[in-house]
C-alpha cells in the first residue's frame, strides 16, 4: 500500500511539473529548460522557512550544517515558496522574452538551470550542499503531521487535481487564447492591439509558481531538498512529458506523466541499479521518435475527452445554430453590425480621417519612401499604386510604426499617433492586415477573430481567477461579437474550423474579419486578393465594398490595376517612394507621364 502510494506521489509531482511547463511550451510556444530550477527553489524555500529556528548553544538544529530555518508553519511557507519561484522566474524572463529568437530563451534558461543546481550544491551554509537541506519538517494538514505516503498522497492528489483544473482553465481562457496567439504569430497579436511581453512574463511566473508548489510539497514529503532532485535531467524529463503527451493538451500531459512515471518502478524491478540510465535511454529515444513520426504527441492539441465535451456544448449554443445557415447573401450583411464595434459615418462632408505628412525612410542610403504626404477620406477606399519597389508596403509599415520612420508625422482623427506602437495604434482605431495573412493557424476561425476584440478584461489572469462568472459572461459576449464579424465576411458557418484547414481564400476572409473585430475605423489592407482563387475574388471584393458602405475608411495596397479600378474611389500613385499623383484610377491611367513611369515606356 505505502509502496504504491509512493509511486503515485512521484508520478503526481512529475504531472504538476509538466502541466505547468505545458503552459509555456505548449500554449505559449516558448521552451524553458529551467522548470526544475523553479521546482527546486520552491523546495529550498519551504525547507528554510519551516525548519526550526537555530538556538544559540544548540548547534545540532539540523544535520546538514545549516544553522536553522525560520520556524514557520507549513502552509504559509508553501505560499511564500510559490511566490518566490514565480518572482524569480518573472525577473529572469523579462530580458529573455523580449528577444525574438527561441534559441536565446533555451540557452538562457539552460544556463539558469545549471547555475541554480550548482549554487544549490555549493552555497553550503544556506542549502546544506550536495547532501541537501535536511531534516525538513513534514507537511501538515488540519493540524496533523503527514509522514506516511498513504496520507501524503491525499494532499498531493488534491494539489495535482487543482493544478490540472487551474492549467486547463487558464489554457482555455481568453488569456490562454492570447498565449496561443503569441505562439502562432506574435506580430499579429500586436497588430490587433495587444501587448505580448506582459502575458509572456506572467505565464512564465505562473508556470514557475506551480512548479514551486510541487517543490514545496516534494521537500516536505521527502523531508530533504537536495540538488540532484532539481537538476537539468528533471527539467528535460518534464519537457519530454509535455512533448510526448502532446503540446497544449493537459490530458496528454497526464497520460504521458503516468507512462513515464511508471517506468521507474518497472525498471527498478527489471534492471535494479541501472534503472535510471535505462529510463533515460527510453524517454530520450521516445522523444526522438515522437518528434520524427508524431510531432503532435500522443493526444494532439484539438483532441481528447474534454475537448469533445466542450465542442459539443458549443455546437448546441443557440447563436451558432442560428447563424449556421449557408453563407449569408452579401447585401443584407452591413446592418448586422451591432456587436462588431464599427462607426457609422458621422458627418456628410468629406472628412479627413488620416493624415500622413512628410513620411521618409532610407535603408542604407537608398530612399525607400521620401517625403510622402497624403490623406484618407472617411468612408472611401484609397489604393496605393505604383511600379514594383515604389514603396507601397513600406509606407504601410511606416504608418503603423512597424518600421520607424526617419521623418514624418501621422495624424489619426486629429490626434498625432506618430511614434506609437502598432498595438497602441490599433487601440486608437487604425489596424492593418498582412500580405501573408499571419493568422493563428492552429486556432479556430472564431478564436482568431475573438483575439482581436478590444478591451477584454477577461484576458487578465487575475480577474480570470477571482471573477469566474464575470469572465464567463464576458467571454460569451466576445464570442458573439466574433461570430458577427465572421458573419460579415460570410465565414460564420466555419467558425469552429481550424484556420489551417480552411482554403487560402477563406483564410483571407478570416483575416478581414479579424481586422473588423479590432473595431478600428481605418483599415489598411495589404493585397487582400493576392493568391485568392479567381472564383473567390469576387466575394472578397464584395466584402471590402460592404465595409466601405458600413462607414469604414480603407487604404489598400493592390498591384492589379484591374482590381484597383473596380474597388478604389481614389488612388495614390507612388514611384521611388514619392507621391506623384492622386485621383481616380481613370484619371491616373490617362496621364502619359504616369504611364511612362509605370511601364517604363
Amino acid at each position: 500500500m505505502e509502496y504504491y502510494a509512493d509511486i503515485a506521489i512521484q508520478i503526481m509531482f512529475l504531472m504538476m511539473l509538466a502541466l505547468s511547463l505545458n503552459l509555456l511550451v505548449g500554449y505559449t510556444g516558448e521552451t524553458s529548460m529551467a522548470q526544475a530550477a523553479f521546482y527546486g527553489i520552491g523546495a529550498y524555500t519551504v525547507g528554510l522557512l519551516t525548519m526550526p529556528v537555530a538556538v544559540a548553544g544548540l548547534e545540532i538544529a539540523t544535520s546538514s550544517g545549516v544553522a536553522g530555518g525560520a520556524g514557520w508553519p507549513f502552509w504559509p511557507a508553501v505560499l511564500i515558496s510559490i511566490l518566490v519561484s514565480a518572482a524569480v522566474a518573472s525577473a529572469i524572463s523579462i530580458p529573455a522574452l523580449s528577444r525574438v529568437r527561441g534559441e536565446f530563451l533555451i540557452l538562457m534558461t539552460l544556463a539558469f538551470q545549471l547555475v541554480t543546481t550548482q549554487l544549490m550544491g555549493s552555497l553550503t551554509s544556506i542549502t546544506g550542499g550536495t547532501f541537501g537541506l535536511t531534516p525538513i519538517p513534514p507537511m501538515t494538514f488540519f493540524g496533523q503531521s503527514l509522514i506516511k505516503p498513504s496520507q501524503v498522497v491525499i494532499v498531493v492528489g488534491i494539489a495535482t487535481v487543482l493544478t490540472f483544473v487551474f492549467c486547463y482553465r487558464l489554457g482555455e481562457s481568453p488569456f490562454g487564447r492570447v498565449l496561443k496567439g503569441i505562439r502562432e504569430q506574435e506580430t499579429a497579436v500586436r497588430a490587433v492591439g495587444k501587448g505580448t511581453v506582459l502575458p509572456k512574463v506572467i505565464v512564465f511566473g505562473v508556470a514557475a509558481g506551480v512548479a514551486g508548489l510541487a517543490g514545496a510539497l516534494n521537500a516536505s514529503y521527502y523531508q530533504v531538498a537536495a540538488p540532484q532532485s532539481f537538476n537539468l535531467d528533471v527539467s528535460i524529463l518534464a519537457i519530454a512529458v509535455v512533448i510526448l503527451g502532446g503540446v497544449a493538451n493537459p490530458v496528454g500531459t497526464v497520460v504521458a506523466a503516468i507512462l513515464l512515471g511508471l517506468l521507474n518502478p518497472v525498471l527498478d524491478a527489471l534492471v535494479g541499479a541501472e534503472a535510471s540510465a535505462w529510463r533515460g535511454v527510453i524517454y530520450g529515444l521516445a522523444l526522438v521518435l515522437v518528434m520524427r513520426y508524431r510531432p503532435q504527441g500522443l493526444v494532439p492539441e484539438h483532441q481528447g475527452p474534454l475537448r469533445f465535451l466542450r465542442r459539443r456544448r458549443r455546437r448546441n449554443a443557440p447563436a451558432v445554430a442560428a447563424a449556421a445557415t449557408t453563407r449569408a447573401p452579401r447585401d443584407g450583411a452591413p446592418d448586422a453590425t451591432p456587436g462588431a464595434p464599427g462607426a457609422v459615418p458621422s458627418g456628410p462632408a468629406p472628412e479627413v480621417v488620416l493624415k500622413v505628412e512628410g513620411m521618409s525612410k532610407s535603408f542604407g542610403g537608398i530612399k525607400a519612401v521620401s517625403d510622402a504626404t497624403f490623406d484618407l477620406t472617411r468612408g472611401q477606399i484609397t489604393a496605393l499604386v505604383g511600379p514594383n519597389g515604389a514603396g507601397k508596403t513600406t509606407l504601410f509599415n511606416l504608418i503603423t510604426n512597424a518600421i520607424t520612420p526617419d521623418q514624418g508625422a501621422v495624424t489619426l482623427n486629429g490626434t498625432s499617433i506618430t511614434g506609437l506602437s502598432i498595438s497602441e495604434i490599433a487601440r486608437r482605431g487604425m489596424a492593418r492586415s498582412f500580405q501573408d495573412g499571419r493568422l493563428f493557424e492552429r486556432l479556430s476561425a472564431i478564436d482568431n477573430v475573438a483575439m482581436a476584440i478590444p478591451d477584454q478584461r477577461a484576458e487578465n489572469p487575475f480577474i480570470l481567477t477571482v471573477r469566474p462568472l464575470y469572465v464567463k459572461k464576458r467571454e460569451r459576449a466576445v464570442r458573439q461579437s466574433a461570430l458577427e464579424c465572421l458573419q460579415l465576411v460570410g465565414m460564420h458557418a466555419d467558425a469552429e474550423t481550424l484556420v489551417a484547414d480552411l482554403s487560402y481564400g477563406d483564410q483571407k476572409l478570416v483575416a478581414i474579419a479579424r481586422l473588423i473585430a479590432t473595431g478600428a475605423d481605418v483599415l489598411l489592407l495589404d493585397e487582400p486578393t493576392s493568391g485568392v482563387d479567381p472564383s473567390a475574388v469576387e466575394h472578397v471584393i464584395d466584402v471590402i465594398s460592404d465595409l466601405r458602405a458600413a462607414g469604414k475608411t480603407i487604404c489598400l495596397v493592390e498591384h492589379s490595376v484591374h482590381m484597383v479600378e473596380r474597388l478604389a474611389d481614389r488612388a495614390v500613385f507612388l514611384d521611388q517612394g514619392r507621391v506623384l499623383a492622386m485621383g481616380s484610377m481613370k484619371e491616373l491611367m490617362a496621364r502619359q507621364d504616369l504611364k511612362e513611369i509605370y511601364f517604363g515606356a
Partner: protein
Amino acid sequence: MHLISAAGASPSLVLQLVVSGVVLGSFYALLGMSVSVIYSTTKVFHFAHAFVYTAAAYVALGTASVLGLPIVLAIVIGLIAAVVLGVTIELVVYRSMRRSGASSLGIFLASLGISIAGPNLIQIIFGPDGRNLPVGNPTLYTVGTVTFTTWDIVTVVVSWVLIGGVLAMRRSRWGLASIAVSANRELSAAVGISPQKIYVYAFAVGSLLIGSAAILFTLNQAATPNMGLQPVLFGFIATFLAGVGNQKTAPLAGFVLGMVVSLSGIWLSQTFQTAVIFGLLFVALIVRPQGIFRKAAV
C-alpha cells in the same frame, strides 16, 4: 585547467591564471568553432553534439583499454566514431525531419532526446564512474613561478591548428560552398550547390572538432557519461556571443570566455566560475543580442 584557490592577487598568481586562461581559452575556442561550424551553416540547435563529444572519448578509451590498441590508433578511431555519429544523426534524424517539414524547435527537441539517450546508453555499457585515457602522466614544466604540463601545450597547439585548418578550408571549394549556403541558401541552390551535402560536410567537420576537444579533455581528466553537456553549452555560448553566423569570431569569443573564467579565479573560488560565465552570457545577450563583435565581412 588547474585548481585555483581564492587567495589574494599576488603577481605570480595572476601570471599563473593568465597561462591557465590561455589553455582554457584555447579549449573553449575549439568548442566555439565546432558549434559555430554546424550552427551557422545548418541552423540546427544541435544539442546532441554533447553525445558526440562523450562518444568520441569513450570509443577512444574503450578501444585503448578494452581492446588494448595503441593509444594513437585508439584516438583516431575515437575521432572517426565522432564524425560517423555526427553525420548519422544528420542523415537519419535531422534530414528526414526537415523533409517532413519539422520546425526548428522540433529538431531541437529530437536532438535533446539523443543527448539524453546516448550518454545513458554509455552509462549502461561503461558504468557511471570516471574513466581515464591510458596516456600516462604529462611532464611538468616550471618557468619562474608558472607551471604547466605537456597536455597544456598539446591542448593549445592542437586547438589552434584545428581552428586554423577550418578557417583555411573556407577558401576551398567545399568551404566556399558552405559559406555560400550559410549566407544565402536559395541562391546556393540556384548555382547548383546542394545544401544537403553541405550540411553533411558541416556535421562532419563540427563532429571532428568536438571529438578532438573530448580527447584533449580526457588527457587531463576522467571521462564520465555526462561529460558532454557543459562543453557543448560553452560552445553555444561562444557562438551566440560571437554573433550567430559569424564563424570567424566564434573561436575568439571562446578564447575570451576562457580567459575571463580563469582570471575570475583572482576573486572567486572555482565553484562560482560557471556562475560567472552564465552571468556574462546573460548580460551580453541583453546588451548585444546580435553578438559582441561587429559583424565582419566574410
